[in-house]
């Protein structure tokens, strides 16, 4: 039996679930994301042990989904990121706690400026094998 991993059990399923609503999705920190995008990255604290026993490693996994859209003008960029966030919230699968969404802020990635915000997510993971 193949050993489980947070990538295959937590981050990739999350990425897959939102692929229908976000044009570009990433399950790790992208070097140069293409807008509009959603990227699943670790939050802090990232892994929280919270269960009894030590036979298996069981942790609460805290994640951030960073969502970004292009800034052509402020009004449309805000409208676009609001629509994208609402669509993503609807697509997040069961088993994930959905937390707050941060305020959108402009970010410079490479030569381009984007409008980005963060969705706090968490779930639970048990290592098998």
């Amino acid at each position, binding site marked *: 039996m193949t050993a489980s991993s947070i990538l295959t059990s937590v981050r990739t399923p999350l990425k897959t679930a939102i692929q229908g609503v976000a044009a570009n999705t990433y399950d790790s920190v992208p070097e140069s994301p293409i807008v509009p995008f959603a990227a699943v990255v670790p939050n802090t604290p990232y892994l929280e042990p919270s269960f009894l*026993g030590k036979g298996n490693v069981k942790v609460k996994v805290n994640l951030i989904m960073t969502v970004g859209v292009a800034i052509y003008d402020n009004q449309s960029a805000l409208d676009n990121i609001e629509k994208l966030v609402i669509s993503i919230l609807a697509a997040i699968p069961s088993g994930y706690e959905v937390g707050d969404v941060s305020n959108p802020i402009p970010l410079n990635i490479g030569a381009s400026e984007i409008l980005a915000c963060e969705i706090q997510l968490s779930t639970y993971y048990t290592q098998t094998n």
Partner: protein
Amino acid sequence: MATSVITGRDLSVTIATKNYNEQAQSATLSADVTIETYDTLFSKAYRSIDKQWTFDLEMLADWGATDSLCEALWSAAETAPNTTLAVSLTAVTGAVFAFNVLPIFPSVGGSSPDAQTVTMSFTVVGTPSETFS
């Protein structure tokens, strides 16, 4: 003696022969001891007259899961409320406590958007038996 540290990671809980470490976040066995105090002409006298044990368990709700504890407890509380369930609580390797509890209905639901949790306080029937090695 050297300092000894044991943590919640050393705990293990089994209810009706099934282990629920994957769901349980806290398990505590405690006793409420009733001690009477008597004022005598000579001095105060103390006498332990009764004790009631309680088993408190906090866990992630597991409705719908295979071997769900929530569903097993609900069924037991509904169909056999006076039939005890055997519990084994290992504090650490070499310190195991065995006792029986009466089934209770787990709470259902929770607050959005958090994971649903269940907090239960079981009445222990009789006195736990301990195994120290």
